[in-house]
Every structure is written in structure tokens, then in C-alpha cells.
């Protein structure tokens, strides 16, 4: 479903994605696991046609995001790491606009919007301006919206960040169901090890723009002789994923990486 080979992205002198290659099988759940600043969002942006790579090749559902963006756009749904709805519109209007952009016929659109908003517990608030929603509500709205046009591939960039455990659980249950019942390929990024371990069939561990390990979570754990993915990550990279969290440490790490490269 997704094929990436030798992918590179430079931001000026910073190499955010460094010669990354991997395949995601149709119908699988694939997790990209890595600390803040590892290059996960950059990778997703390239796959979803909004950022051009510096080098390498990509295929999403057989199409090239660079040469054939519209074909690629038709196949995926995405929940971005940061909000991407219109705050001045209501939840319903945001959904409806999305439906129009993806040419969902109006009768079906109405039915599905209701169904999805009910699923994320926002039906009842559908007429409220999104600006007044809490962070968790906004995220749930984004998830509902990404599913409206029944995508073949669903990209989720740190989808559970800022969600309470209950909603998180609820969301993964639904996404797993989507994968199982409708065969939707799931590609998600996270820096929660347990999430990747529990949910993904396949994992790629990314650190400083490079893939350091790939395979089924159990295999990675076995290969590194660790007891969990968390330990495996430390074994692979020499550092704890959590010490990389937060923007300040991200900047410190960037500086370190910069000096290392010189």
C-alpha cells in the first residue's frame, strides 16, 4: 500500500528524514515510533502530498505523491498532529465542508456525519462553533472528519496526544475495527511505546531521521533481547525515548546533532 525508498528531506542544513525505506502492506496497521523531532511528521507530510522530498521515491496505493498528487489524495484520510479545522465554523459545518471537498454525495454525507459525530460523542454539540471546544473534542472531531470519505489508508500523526485514557481506548478500538472490518490500512506515528506494541502489526523505529529497527514488535523485542519495546528502543538508540520529549530538549538535541555532523 505504501512503499518508500531512500527518502530524504532536508530543511536547510538539517536532515529531518535521512534515507528512509520501508513498505506498508495493504490492510495492515503500521506504527512509526520515535521521539520528538525524529522526523515522523515530516515523513507523513511528504506521503500526504503537502511537502516535497529532497530525494528518494514514494508510492501510496501505487501512485506517486509528487507526480500524481490528486490520485494519492483520493485514497487517504489524515489526522494531523496539529488542528486543521476551521475554528469559526461549527462541528457540522467542518464535517460538511470536508464531505464536499471529497465529493461525498449529500444524502450519504448527512447520514455519515451524524453517525461519525455520534461515534466520537460530539452529536449534540454539532451546531457549536469549534473554537469553544476543548482540546480533546477538537481531536475527536478531526478523527471523525478523516473517516467521512472512507479512505483506503488512514494517516494518524500522534492521534492520541492529549486525549484522556478512556477516549484513547475508545478510539483505538474503533480504528482497529475499521482495519479489521473494512480493510483500511492504518499508518500512525506515536512516541508512546505501549501503543505501538499493542496496536501495530508492524513497527518502524525512527531516531534522528533514520530508521533504526523494523518489524513486528515481538521480533524487535526479541532481536534486541529486551523485555519491552521501551527497552528495545534504549538498546537501539542508547537513550530513553522520554528524555527527548518537549521542545526544549528537542532543540538541545538538534544542536547536538548539528555538532556531531560537523
Amino acid at each position, binding site marked *: 500500500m505504501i512503499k518508500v525508498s531512500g527518502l530524504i528531506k532536508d530543511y536547510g542544513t538539517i536532515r529531518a528524514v535521512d534515507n528512509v525505506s520501508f513498505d506498508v502492506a495493504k490492510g495492515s496497521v503500521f506504527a512509526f515510533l520515535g521521539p520528538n523531532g525524529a522526523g515522523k511528521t515530516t515523513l507523513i*507530510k511528504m506521503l*500526504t*502530498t*503537502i*511537502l*516535497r522530498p529532497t530525494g528518494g521515491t514514494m508510492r501510496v496505493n501505487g501512485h506517486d505523491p509528487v507526480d500524481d498528487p*490528486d490520485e494519492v*489524495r*483520493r485514497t*487517504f484520510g*489524515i489526522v*494531523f498532529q*496539529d*488542528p*486543521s*479545522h*476551521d*475554528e*469559526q*465554523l461549527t462541528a457540522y*459545518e467542518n464535517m*460538511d*465542508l*470536508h464531505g*464536499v*471537498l*471529497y*465529493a461525498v454525495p449529500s444524502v450519504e454525507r448527512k447520514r455519515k456525519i451524524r453517525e461519525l459525530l455520534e461515534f466520537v460523542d460530539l452529536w449534540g454539540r454539532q451546531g457549536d*462553533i469549534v473554537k469553544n471546544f476543548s482540546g480533546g473534542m477538537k481531536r475527536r472531531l478531526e478523527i471523525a472528519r478523516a473517516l467521512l470519505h472512507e479512505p483506503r489508508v488512514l494517516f494518524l500523526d500522534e492521534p492520541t496526544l492529549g486525549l484522556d485514557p478512556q477516549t484513547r481506548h475508545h478510539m483505538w478500538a474503533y480504528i482497529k475495527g475499521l482495519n479489521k472490518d473494512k480493510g483500511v490500512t492504518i499508518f500512525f506515528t506515536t512516541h508512546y511505546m505501549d501503543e505501538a506494541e499493542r496496536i501495530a502489526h508492524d513497527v518502524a523505529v525512527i531516531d534522528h531521521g533514520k530508521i533504526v529497527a523494523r518489524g513486528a514488535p515481538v521480533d524487535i523485542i526479541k532481536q534486541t533481547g529486551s523485555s519491552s519495546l521501551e527497552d528495545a528502543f534504549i538498546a537501539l538508540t542508547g537513550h530513553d525515548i522520554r528524555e527527548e520529549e518537549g521542545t526544549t530538549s528537542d532543540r538541545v538535541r538538534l544542536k547536538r546533532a548539528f555538532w556531531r555532523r560537523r
Partner: protein
Amino acid sequence: MSVVFALWLRQIKRHFRSRTRLIGSLGQPVLFLLALGFGLGPMFRKAGEGDYLQFLAPGVIAMPILFVAVFSGMEIIWDRQFGFLKETLVAPVSRIQIVLGRVLGGATVAWFQGCLVFLICVIFGFRINNILFLPLALGVMFLLAIFCSAMGTAVASLLEDIQGFQMMMNFLVMPLFFLSNALFPLKGVPPVLRVVIQLNPLSYGIDGLRCCLTGGMLHGLGVDMGVLLVLITAMLALCTWLFSLIQL
């Protein structure tokens, strides 16, 4: 088409849900009417140019059109900041449709604000020559609005953050307004300034308005509308191209 309409509707909703936007853009034109219209009026008359309000009104009507349209076009910067831009960029629709929806939406709200200022001008004593030309005047206002909105969208496609906005106001919008035929007649103006004013797209919109409302024109309505249409086409093409280059 429905994509263009949906994006157009979004702009309309955003505009009419914000009272500050509805009212905010009226302040400046009213100030100009009061200060210039009544302040400079006697001098204008003494110089044998007739009633200044009659001259000034089309320029003042163009003011909110220019400002609101450019501002609406520049909403791309906000959409970039607040994320909505991503939603449109990943959608499987042609970039032309997105640009058209945005530009027409921005143009419509700017045109509406222009109509409000038109009414205010009439309340202040502005009189039009021939009511039959009113629809044509409203048409010219809309063309001007489309051009300005496309211009704002084009420039905003190049800007990454809100800091660029102030620069745009100071180095594009203000000069466009003051170096046009909005506030003063061209008679006796130094040649260099005259050339600048004649190259200014806004001048054609204002001249077109004068043709329809009060006579006293520079180029004639045909030329004004023709130039505006050519400029709109060129600006829409540029705008679509620049928009398609946006990366996030």
C-alpha cells in the same frame, strides 16, 4: 463547482459571524468622508472643481473593497497558522477550485462592505447621476473586489507568518490607495505621479465607478472594465500558480 461554492460559503460565514469585521472596515472610510469630504470640500470648490464629496465618494467606496478584499485574501496566513490550510491542501480537488472559492468569497465580503460604505456616502449627501447605472457600478465594484482579493491571496501564498501582513499593508495596500485617483483629480499632478496613478490597478476600478456614478471619467467605462478583466485573469493565474507551490 460545489467545491468553489462550499469554500465561498465558508468565507461568507466567517465574515458575517464576526461583528468586528463587519463594523471595523467601516471606520476608516467614514473618517475619510468626514475629514476630507467636509474638511477639504471648501478648498476644492474654491479651486473650481465642484463638489468634493461627489468626487471623493467613489474613492471612499473603493477603500473598504481594497482593504477587506486584500485582508480576506491574506486569511491564508491565518489558515496556515491555525491549520485549516492543510485540510484544503490534502483534498483531492484542483488548486484552481480552491483559489476560486477563496478569492470569490473574499471578493464577496469586500463587495458587501463596499455597498455599506456606498450607503453611508448617500446618507452623507452623495448623489448619483443616473440610477440606471447603479447595477453597472455594483458590477465594477465586484470586479475590483475580485482583483484585490486575488492579489491578497497571491501575496499571502508567499508569506509564512503574520509578520508579513503588516509589511503588506504598508508597502502594498496603503500605496495602492494613496497613489491612485481615489482622493484627488489628476489635473495638474506631476507627470511621474500621474504615470504611477495610471499604472495603479485600483485607479481603473475607481475610474469605472466614477463613470457609472458621477461621470467625470479618465478612461471611459469600456477601458476600465477591460483592464480590470485582464488584470483579474492574470492575477488569478498567478495566484493559482503560487498557491500550488505552497508546502507546509
